[in-house]
């Protein structure tokens, strides 16, 4: 794929929150129809489809279409960023022309779920689950104490990640936690897995979202302003958190972002807007450091100085993120949706002069990672 060769021409989310009347397949179908309507297209235009956990064939058949290309890569919450990368390559290679990337998850109501349990003879079943872990709130959080210790940062700075993001969600009726909170309020919330209180862990919701991708040439004939895919990356670390290469750095973040930035031909100085997958409050700190926006150990102070807050020079997680806006279990779709909204000038808290937006996703417990560089302009 050449930078800008492929564009996002449709984007939409379903209703969010508690949707007990909808199964996961229903959420997929609703998301796909909304995104296609946004693009001014119909199911008849779709010849490529992606989904995670649920087979893309199950989803296609439920929708009543027969795609000639599909991808069911299922690597956790960043699967949908990976799908965008794969779809862009497939369109560029001529395997298909119009792909709908779909997410739907009943994380809260648990309707129509495919069981996600790991067997007692799996590596996690033998070497993690016997220790009373309930992934992810007490698994994904495990590296944080070592990270804070080695980088000289504090639990207050960790809590402040959630406080700043609550400023972005403040007043948004679509946000699960739509009220600004102070660091003290976040630290005094119910304890989940010390040092993480409930406010430092993501919300748990039902919802879905979808993107429609096609070629730049086709995009110019459609009704919505195109969001161009300038660069993409995917990477991996360890399937079980105790074995990640370095507890204080994400190998996946570093590799995926390096690939995406190189493909796009940009550096951190070119980035106007950033989404970092925030299932838990330490992830944006890792993201700022591993993507190279700040030096090691500088993320907490950078956030405290207001750089990522409304009015700051690097607006980050501007929907409120997984901590405040929504988190179905695989949040990556919603990070991409906010980047598209910002680049199309339709965000709830719109940032001025956004032209280059970076989305950093993670899957599993630092297991998988993917990065997208998106822009409203051709390079």
């Amino acid at each position, binding site marked *: 794929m050449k930078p800008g060769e492929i564009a996002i021409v449709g984007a939409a989310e379903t209703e969010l929150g508690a949707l007990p009347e909808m199964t996961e397949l229903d959420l997929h179908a609703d998301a796909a129809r909304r995104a296609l309507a946004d693009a001014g297209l119909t199911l008849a235009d779709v010849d490529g489809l992606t989904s995670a956990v649920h087979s893309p064939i199950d989803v296609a058949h439920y929708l009543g279409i027969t795609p000639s290309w599909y991808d069911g890569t299922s690597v956790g919450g960043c699967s949908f960023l990976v799908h965008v990368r794969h779809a862009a390559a497939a369109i560029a290679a001529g395997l298909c022309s119009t792909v709908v990337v779909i997410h739907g998850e009943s994380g809260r109501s648990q309707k129509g779920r495919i069981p996600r349990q790991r067997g*007692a003879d799996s590596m996690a079943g033998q070497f993690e689950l016997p220790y009373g872990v309930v992934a992810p709130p007490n698994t994904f959080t*495990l590296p*944080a*104490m070592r990270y804070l210790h080695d980088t000289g940062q504090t639990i207050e700075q960790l809590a402040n990640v959630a406080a700043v993001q609550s400023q972005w969600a403040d007043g948004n009726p679509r946000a699960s936690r739509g009220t600004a909170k102070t660091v003290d309020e976040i630290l005094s919330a119910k304890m989940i*897995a010390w040092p993480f209180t409930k406010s430092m862990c993501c919300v748990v919701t039902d919802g879905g979202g979808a993107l429609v991708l096609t070629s730049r040439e086709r995009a110019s004939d459609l009704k919505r302003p195109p969001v161009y895919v300038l660069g993409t990356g995917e990477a991996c670390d360890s399937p079980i958190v105790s*074995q990640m290469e370095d*507890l204080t750095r994400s190998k996946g973040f570093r590799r995926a972002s390096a690939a995406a930035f190189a493909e796009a031909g940009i550096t951190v100085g070119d980035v106007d807007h950033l989404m970092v997958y925030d299932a838990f409050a330490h992830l944006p700190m890792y993201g700022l450091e591993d993507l190279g926006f700040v030096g090691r150990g500088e993320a907490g102070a950078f956030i405290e100085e207001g750089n990522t807050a409304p009015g700051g020079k690097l607006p980050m997680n501007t929907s409120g993120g997984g901590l405040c806006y929504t988190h179905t279990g695989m949040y990556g779709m919603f990070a991409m949706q906010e980047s598209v909204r910002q680049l199309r000038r339709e965000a709830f808290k719109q940032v001025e002069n956004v032209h280059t937006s970076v989305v950093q996703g993670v899957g599993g417990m630092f297991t998988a990672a993917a990065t997208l560089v998106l822009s409203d302009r051709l390079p």
Partner: protein
Amino acid sequence: MTVADKPVPVPTPVTRPFWEGTKEGELRVQKCDACGKHIFYPRPGCPFCGAADPSWVVATGRARLESYVINHLPGPGFKDDVPYVIAIVTLEEGPRMMTNLVGVDPDPAKLTLDMPLEVVFEERGDQVLPKFRPVEVKA
């Protein structure tokens, strides 16, 4: 909730020497005959150099506290145990592993990163789990 409700690991052909070791009171890890590195979790080949069939050796059982959470959200069968410490420890031989800390209060003031630990063994169903406790500081 009883111990019977807690997850019990099921060994595989590759991991069986580890679980046979814990029943003997030994913490066994693999060691690559080619590059000399210790390996955990058990695998059919060395993840560092690619050599096949690593050997099994008995680790000292000494470790240090790498990272932890004090968990208030109980896993299956752990309802009566909260809060409890889920930790990552680094063995003297190099590999890291997840475990529970025992013999210490679940209190941040008592849990200092890098504190020395030693392995203890606890029955879990038909298996024996390695856990870790602080090493007594001799006066």
